[in-house]
């Protein structure tokens, strides 16, 4: 288990919005490692794991986006049937509530990371 930085960007739910965001990544030569989009009616929040999160934060602020950065947990999973289940079981036992989760596949494709946004950070740090 490790802590990594996640970027959350506010976007209106309109055509072309994702493209605006990916352009900022491209122009600043920042690699996206994983992402997730949650939308609710007329707006959404896009979450990204990037190789240079601090640089990305700066770049998006400069481009006029509303953005925030927070720490999330990355839990290793085995890339085989039941891998996710093992992790889920473990989290359930710990009594932690996940706000939001998505998957990051590591470059070597040997394993995958479950990116978990857990608001009760202290408890999570102790348990995981």
């Amino acid at each position, binding site marked *: 288990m490790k802590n990594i930085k996640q970027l959350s960007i506010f976007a209106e739910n309109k055509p072309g919005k994702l493209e605006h965001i990916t352009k900022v990544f491209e122009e600043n030569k920042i690699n996206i490692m994983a992402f997730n989009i949650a939308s609710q009616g007329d707006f959404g929040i896009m979450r990204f794991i990037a190789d240079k999160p601090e640089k990305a934060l700066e770049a998006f602020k400069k481009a006029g986006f509303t953005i*925030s950065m927070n720490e999330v947990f990355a839990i290793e999973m085995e890339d085989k049937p039941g891998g996710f289940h093992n992790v889920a079981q473990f989290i359930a036992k710990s009594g932690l509530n996940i706000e939001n989760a998505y998957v990051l596949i590591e470059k070597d494709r040997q394993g995958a990371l479950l990116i978990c946004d857990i608001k009760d950070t202290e408890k999570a740090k102790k348990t995981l």
Partner: protein
Amino acid sequence: MSLIWNKKAECLLPIEKDQLQLERLQHIVKYACEKVPYYKKAFDKAGVKPSDIKSLKDIEKLPFTSKAELRDAYPFGMFAAPMEEIVEIHTSSGTTGKPVVMGYTTADIELWSEVMARSLSMAGCTKADIVQNAYGYGLFTGGLGVHYGARKIGANVIPISAGNTKRQLEIMRDFGTTILTCTPSYALFLAESAKDDKIDLKSLKLRSGVFGAEMWTEKMREEIEKRLHISATNIYGLTEIIGPGVAQECEVKNGLHLQEDLFYPEIVSPENLSVLSEGEKGELVLTTLTREGTPMIRFRTKDITSLHRGECKCGRTSIKMDRITGRSDDMLKIRGVIVFPSSIEKALLEIKGLEPHYKIIITRPHQLDEIEVQVEASEILFSDEIRHMEETKKNIENHIEKSVGLKLKVTLVEPKTLPRSEGKAKRVFDQRELK
């Protein structure tokens, strides 16, 4: 306490004021009737003669003048003075039809300079000040009005006009501007741009601002004062009467002193045009008491306000009007409820962290009015959880509903995507198709 520019005129005793107003009213009514065919016709139709004006109350016998009549008189039909006496012409913006054309004689320009000198003095302007005049120069009266007033005081006026924000900020810093004059929305825009351009507004010499030409709120004043580190006062005026300078706030900031030795105010009901008493809210009607070029008799301003008489701590005795809270023709009827966009703005600005930029869109998708308010998702409002954002949205909706009495939908949009205005801000979009 700032200086009173014209103590004699601004601190009249009630009896002196009444006497002066009556003499001037009798004169201007006679003058208008003799020189402008429109007035003669309108008076005849109403069955009233100038000699019927025996008291101030008799003004109620005279017919109203509205913008429609001024448009019909395009271009020079309302001029009372011969063309060779006219030294300047101004027009209203003409966004809703033909522009309204007003003529100024030398005495009118002097009158305008006088009321603007009084107004700027109320905001603390003296000979020693540097006035950065960011109202537009041209046919619009804002620019030249401030210019004439500042010149009369002997202040140093920078006639920068509206727009070119970067240069405005540089000049403000490098020339040591002490007084800023522009629309309140542009003042906020300047503050926002200063942040982007890394200009420290706190370190500037700027200390006072005279803001007008559009409706604004107390909350906006707080924002302007806080962000620009100045004292912000409200000015009122309109081209049809003279331009800016009809009324202005003194340092007490609880109403605008109306220059009633020169302009006679009434408040009427926008529904049936009956004259309302002091303190009642309604449409402001103004009569110019000394105007030569284009005298205005009972002009319906469409601005909603109320008048209050009483002693002011500043020493002036002139009647005070409230800040304008709406336009009788901007008045929206949403699902049968009367709403002024300004009251929505007021409610919005009470919410902490909300940027003072918004857009109101009214539609009628299913035979029922729907109103949407777009606000920007500022950093302070932003949360990385959808749930919290939804809550924020709901809170804004509830807050507006509570204070305006209207259910509406709030949409969060990306920062800096709502139009910033460098002149009069257009924020209400009525897209109802009334079939």
